[in-house]
C-alpha cells in the first residue's frame, strides 16, 4: 500500500502531496491482520498536525471493519499516559509516546533564509529553499511515521491491543478533544518524574532477588546511557553532514554564477550529498533515537517492577511488625500477599516483555543497518557515476 500524506507547508503555502513509505523504520512488527492501522494522511497547520488514523480490522469489538478518524498529537499523548497509568499494564513495556512534532528548526531556517535572501543569488536561494522544503518534508514524514509506529506497536501487542482507551482512540469518530495538560498538571508530572528518578536511586540499592532482572537492569542501565550518547553523536554527525551538503549548495550556486562551465557535477553532487545526510538521519539516528526511548520504556518497566519489589519487601516488614505486635495481622498478611502477587505478576510479564524487546531490538537493528549500508552504497555509487561523468565531460571539452 502506498499511503499518501498531505501536508501544508505553512510558509511555502505550497500544498505538497508526498509519498510516504510508511512501513515502520524502527520496529519490525509481526503484523496481525486482525488489526491494521496506518496514517495515510496528515495535515499540517501551524503547530498542529492532524493525522488521519485509518484502521482496518476483523475484530468484532469494533463496529465497522474499516474506518478513519482525525487525531492530533495530543490525543496520542493522552493515550500513552492512559496506558502508563493503568495498573494492570505495570508489567508491560508501554511503547514510548511519539515525540512532539518539531517544525521549529526548519521553520527557523526558512526564516533565516528569507533574511539572507539579499546576499544570495536567485538560484542559490531557490536551491536553498528547495532544500529546506525537502528538510521540512522529511521532518513531517518522520513525525507521521513515529505516530504510526506507536499505534502499530499497540495494535500488535496482545494485551495492549485490547485496551479500551486504545479502541476508543481508534474508533471514536468525533474530535477526542482531550484536554491539554494545564500548568499545574505539567508541573505535577514534572514533579512525578523527579520523585521517580529519586526513587529509582533509592530502589537501585535494593538487592535483586532474580538474576535475570539483575542482569537486565545492569544491561539496560549501561545500554541506555550508551545509546543516548550514540544518538547524540549520530545527530551531531548528520547535522554536520547536512552542513557539508548545504555548503555544496552554496558552492555550486556560486560556481554557477561564476559561469565556470563545469558546475553541473558539483550541483548534482550536492543533491546526493544532501540525500546521504537525510537518509543517514532517517535510518541511523531514528533507529537509535527510537531505541533510546524504547529503552527508557523498558527501564520504566524495570522501575515499576523494582517499585513492586520494594513494596513487597515493605509489606513483609509490616507483616513482621504486625506479628510482633499481634495487631492487624490479617490485614498485613493480606497486604503482603497482594504485594507478592503483584510482584510475581510483574516479574513474569516483565521477563516476557524484556525478552521480546531484545529480539525486537536485534531485528530492528539488523534491518536498519542493512538498509543504511545499502543506501550508503547506493548513494556513493550514484556519486561516483556522477563524478565520472563530470570528469569525462570536463576532459572532453
Amino acid at each position, binding site marked *: 500500500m502506498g499511503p499518501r500524506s498531505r501536508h501544508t507547508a505553512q510558509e511555502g503555502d505550497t500544498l505538497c502531496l508526498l509519498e510516504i513509505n510508511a512501513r515502520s523504520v524502527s520496529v519490525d512488527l509481526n503484523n496481525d491482520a486482525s488489526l491494521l492501522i496506518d496514517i495515510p494522511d496528515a495535515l499540517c497547520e501551524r503547530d498542529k498536525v492532524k493525522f488521519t488514523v485509518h484502521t482496518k480490522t476483523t475484530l468484532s469489538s469494533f463496529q465497522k471493519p474499516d474506518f478513519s478518524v482525525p487525531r492530533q498529537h495530543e490525543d496520542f499523548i493522552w493515550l500513552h499516559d492512559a496506558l502508563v497509568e493503568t495498573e494492570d499494564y505495570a508489567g508491560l513495556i508501554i511503547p514510548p509516546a511519539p515525540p512532539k512534532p518539531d517544525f521549529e528548526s526548519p521553520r527557523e531556517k526558512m526564516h533565516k533564509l528569507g533574511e539572507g535572501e539579499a546576499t544570495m543569488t536567485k538560484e542559490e536561494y531557490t536551491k536553498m529553499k528547495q532544500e529546506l522544503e525537502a528538510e521540512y518534508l522529511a521532518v513531517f514524514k518522520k513525525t507521521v511515521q513515529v505516530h504510526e509506529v506507536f499505534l502499530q506497536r499497540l495494535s500488535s501487542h496482545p494485551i495492549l491491543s485490547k485496551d479500551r482507551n486504545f479502541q476508543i482512540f481508534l474508533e471514536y469518530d468525533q474530535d477526542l478533544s482531550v484536554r491539554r495538560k494545564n500548568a499545574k498538571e505539567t508541573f505535577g508530572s514534572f514533579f512525578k518524574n523527579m520523585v521517580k528518578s529519586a526513587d529509582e536511586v533509592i530502589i537501585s540499592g535494593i538487592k535483586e532477588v532474580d538474576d535475570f532482572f539483575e542482569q537486565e537492569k545492569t*544491561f539496560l542501565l*549501561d*545500554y541506555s546511557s*550508551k*545509546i543516548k*550518547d*550514540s544518538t547524540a*553523536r*549520530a545527530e*551531531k*554527525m548528520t*547535522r*554536520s*553532514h547536512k*552542513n*557539508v551538503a548545504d*555548503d*555544496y549548495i*552554496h*558552492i555550486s550556486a*556560486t*560556481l554557477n*554564477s*561564476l559561469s*565556470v562551465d*563545469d558546475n553541473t*557535477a558539483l550541483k548534482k*553532487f550536492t543533491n546526493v550529498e544532501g540525500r546521504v545526510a537525510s537518509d543517514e538521519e532517517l535510518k541511523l539516528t531514528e533507529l537509535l533515537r527510537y531505541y533510546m526511548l524504547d529503552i527508557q520504556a523498558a527501564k520504566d518497566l524495570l522501575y515499576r517492577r523494582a517499585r513492586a519489589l520494594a513494596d513487597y519487601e515493605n509489606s513483609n516488614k509490616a507483616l513482621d511488625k504486625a506479628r510482633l505486635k499481634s495487631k492487624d495481622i490479617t490485614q498485613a498478611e493480606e497486604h503482603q500477599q497482594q504485594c507478592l502477587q503483584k510482584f510475581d505478576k510483574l516479574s513474569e510479564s516483565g521477563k516476557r516483555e524484556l525478552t521480546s524487546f*531484545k529480539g525486537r*531490538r*536485534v531485528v530492528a*537493528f*539488523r534491518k536498519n*543497518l*542493512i538498509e543504511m*549500508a*545499502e543506501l*550508503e*552504497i547506493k548513494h*556513493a*555509487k550514484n*556519486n*561516483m557515476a556522477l*563524478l*565520472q561523468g*563530470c*570528469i569525462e565531460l*570536463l*576532459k572532453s571539452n
Partner: protein
Amino acid sequence: MDPSLSASDIASSTKPLSEASSPPVMDLLSEPASEASSAPMVDLLMEPASEGSSAPMVDILSEPASEASSAPMVDLLMEPAREGSSAPMVDLLMEPASEASSAPMMNLLMEPASEASSAPMMNLLMEPASDDLKEPPKPDIDPLADILNDTPLSEVKTPVAAMPQETPSDLFDDEPSELFAEPRQSNTAKQQQTSIFDEPDEDLFSEPLGEASKNPQNDFFKEALAPVAKASNVCGPLSDNYNEHPTDIFTEEAMTTLPSAVSTVSVNSKTNGVHSDEEEPDIFAEATVELSLDSPRNDRKKKGAAKPSAPAPAPSVSASASKPQPKTLEELEEEVEDKFELNISITNPEKVGDGMNAYMAYKVSTQTTLPMFRSKTFTVRRRFSDFLGLYEKLSDKHTPNGYIVPPPPEKSIMGMTKVKVGKEDNSSAEFVERRRAALERYLQRVVFHPSLLQDPDVREFLERDDMPRAHNTQALSGAGFLKMINRATDSLSKMTIKMNESDVWFEEKLQEVEAEDQQLRKLHIMVDSLVGHRKELSVNTGGFAKSVAMLGSSEDNTALSRALSQLAEVEDKMEQLHQEQAASDSFCFAELLADYIRLLGSVRASFDQRMKTWQRWQDAQNMLQKKRETEAKLLWANKPDKLQQAKDDITEWEAKVTQYERDFDRVSATVRKEVLRFEKEKARDFKKQIIKYLESLLQSQQQLIKYWEAFLPEAKAIA
C-alpha cells in the same frame, strides 16, 4: 610588412622635430636627418629586408641600438646647450663608472663618455650615417663592404650607450639565443632613464651598474667592449657569441649597423628639436611593441624567420590601437604554449636557523631545454622573502606597462611564528606544505608568462647561487608601509578619476573582473566553511564511531555486538576519509581560489594602470589646452616676447599629448592581451584543478563503497 613604412615613419617624425632648432648642434644633425627621410634611405632599408635572413637582425639590433645610443648619449650631447639638468646627468653617468671600479670597464666608460660630450663624438655619430646616406645611389656595387667599414662606429654606440643602464651584460650574454631580450632590456633602460630625467638626484644608475660589475657576465661585457674601445671590427666579439652561423651573422651584424646608424641620426635630430624627455617614451613604445611581437618567438633560435614584418606592426600598433593585435598575439602565444619547455618544482622545505631568526628555505629546481639558461637542470635555495623580492622587482618593472604580474602568497606571521617556535605539530607542517605549493604555483605562473620569463631577474632568481638578500619585502620595513600609502592614494585617485571609457571592451571586462572577484571571494568563504564543516563532520564521525564501539561492547547479542563494532570501524574509516577530503577541499579548491583572488588583484592593478596612463594623457591634454589659451591671450595682448615661450610650450605639450596617448594605447593593448591570456590560463587552471578535485571526491566515494560493502554482510549476519 613593409620596412619602408617604418623608414618613412621615422622620417616623418623627424621632420617636425628638425624644424625646431637649437643652433649649433642642430646644424650638424639636421642635415643627415633630412637626408634620411629621402628615398635612398628607404632603398637601404629595403635591401636587407629582401635578403630575408638578415632582416630580422637589422630590426632587432637597430631598434635598441638607436634607442639606447640616442637617449643618454644624445642627452649628454644636447642637453648642455639647453638645460642645467644635463650636468647631474653627466655626473650620474660618470659616477657609476667609477663605482664599477674594474679598470678596463672604467676606461671604457670614461672614454666614450668624455668623447661623447665633445665634438668628435658627434662626428662619430654622424659619420656612419652620412656615409651610408651617400652610399645609396650605388648600393649595388658593394653595400656590404661599405657597411662593414662603417660598422665600428655605429656599433660603438650600442655598447657605450647601453652600458650605463645595466643592459650590456645581458645584451651580450644572450644575443645568440634570444634576440627579443634586447628590446626589453632597452625597455628597462628606458625606465631608468625616464626616472633619471625626472629625478636627477637619485642614483639609480649606480645600482644596476654595481650589479653589473658583480655579475659573471661582466666578462662578456668587457670582451664586447674591448674592440669597441679600439674602434675596430665589432663582429669579432659578437661572432664569438654567435656560434651557429658565423657567416650569416657576420652579414647580419653588418646590416644591423646600417639602420641603426640611420635611426640614430633621426633620433638625434629629434632630440635636438624637442625636449629629450619626450623622445624616450616614444622609442620606448617602439621597443615594447617589438617586445610583444618578438617575445613569443623565443623558440626561434635562428634569426631567419619572417622578421621584416616587425617594423610594420610597430607603428600600426601604437597608432591604431589593438584590433588585429590580440589575434596575432594569441596565435603566437599558442606556439609558445606548445613549445613550452620549462619545469619548475619547489621541494624540500627546510628550516634554517633557530628562534625568531629562523626561516624556511625551499629548493627551487628548474628543468629546461630553453637555450636562455646556462644548463638544463639546476637548483637553487630560496627563502620566502626572496620570492617576495622577485615579485617586487617584477611588479615595479612590469605593472606600469599593464602586465599582470602574478602575486606571491601572502606573508603569514601567524603561520611562520609557529614554524619558528619549532612546534612540530600538524598545523605547522600543513602550513609549510601549503606555502610550498603556493610558491610553486606562483613561480610556475611567472615563468609561464612569456614576457616575464625573459626578465633577467627571473633568470637570476632561478639560476643564481648566491642571491642577494631581498630587503624591502613588504611588512618587513617602512618600504611596505610606504607601499601601503601609495596603494591608499592609488585607490583614492581611482575613486576620483572618472574615466569616460572609450573602449567598451575594457569597461565590460573590468566589470566582469570585479564581479568575478566578488564571486570568488564568496566562493572562497564557502569552501572554507565546507572545509570547516567537513572537519567537524570528521570529528563527529569519530565520536560516533567511539560511541558505537561502546554500544557494541555492551550489546548482549553477540552478532549485533559484532556488527556494531564493525560499524564503529567503518565510521572510523569514514572519519579518515572525511579528513582527507577536507584536506583535498582546501588544497585543491580553496588554494586555487585564493590564488585567483590574488591574481584578480593584479588584473585590476593592470586596469588601474591603464586608467593612470589615460589620466596622464588627459592631464596633458588639459595642460595643452591651457597653454593654447595662454598663447591666445598673449597674442591678443600682443606680447611677442613671451609668445615664443608659449609656442615652445605648446609644441612641448603637443608632443607630450601624442606621447601619452601612445602610451595609453600601448598599455591598453598590453592589458587587453594580458587579460585574454589570463582568462585562458584561468580556464585551463580551473579545469585542471576541478578535475583533480572531482577525482579526489571520486576516490573517496570509491573508498566509501568499499567500506560499506564490507560492512553489509556483517549487518546481514545479525540473527
